[in-house]
């Protein structure tokens, strides 16, 4: 039973436009949410996180939004760049242990 779901396996956007990646979860006990980025032949690297006491966290071009009532979070990348092309994983945990990952969304940013 997947507790974290990324329903879009792929997303394609034009360079300079906004990329929006979505993630839904089912476990209301999750209190920490993270986004990871993965290039081929490399391990995932941490991108940005948000705790359940917040509804928004921003870091440069990356912003994560959390809607607890809808059990939904999203990652916005503005402006998108070709180097952002990668697989993005959403993850959630209870007190940062025992993390659960979504299936990933492959983002392609076209020049």
């Amino acid at each position: 039973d997947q507790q974290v779901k990324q329903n879009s396996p792929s997303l394609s956007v034009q360079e300079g436009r906004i990329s929006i990646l979505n993630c839904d979860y089912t476990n209301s006990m999750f209190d920490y949410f993270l986004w990871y980025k993965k290039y081929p032949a490399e391990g995932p690297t941490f991108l940005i996180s948000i705790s359940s006491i917040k509804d928004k966290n921003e870091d440069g071009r990356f912003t994560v939004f959390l809607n607890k009532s809808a059990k939904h979070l999203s990652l916005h990348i503005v402006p998108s760049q070709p180097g952002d092309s990668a697989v993005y994983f959403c993850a959630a945990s209870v007190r940062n242990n025992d993390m659960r990952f979504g299936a990933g969304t492959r983002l392609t940013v076209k020049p």
Partner: protein
Amino acid sequence: DVKVTQSSRYLVKRTGEKVFLECVQDMDHENMFWYRQDPGLGLRLIYFSYDVKMKEKGDIPEGYSVSREKKERFSLILESASTNQTSMYLCASSRDRVGQPQHFGDGTRLSIL
């Protein structure tokens, strides 16, 4: 910078063999994790450990065991490899503190023939 090192990038083994995957981290992290990554399924947690000699089952522990004799090293063992264990295996570590992200190695692509 945190470094998580997995002993092999690629490994080919035969059905029935006992397979060891090794992972070492250099940041004195308390927590260590083993995942497998399969297309369409994302990362699934196999086992994790909060401390030396401690281990906890993740979502898919069947057919696997782990060993953590030293804080920096976490080994994944396939007791009797089967073809359905062909996958990408990822090791990660983290501090045992709220909000600390996991740091991943580059993965071991394991093929069981």
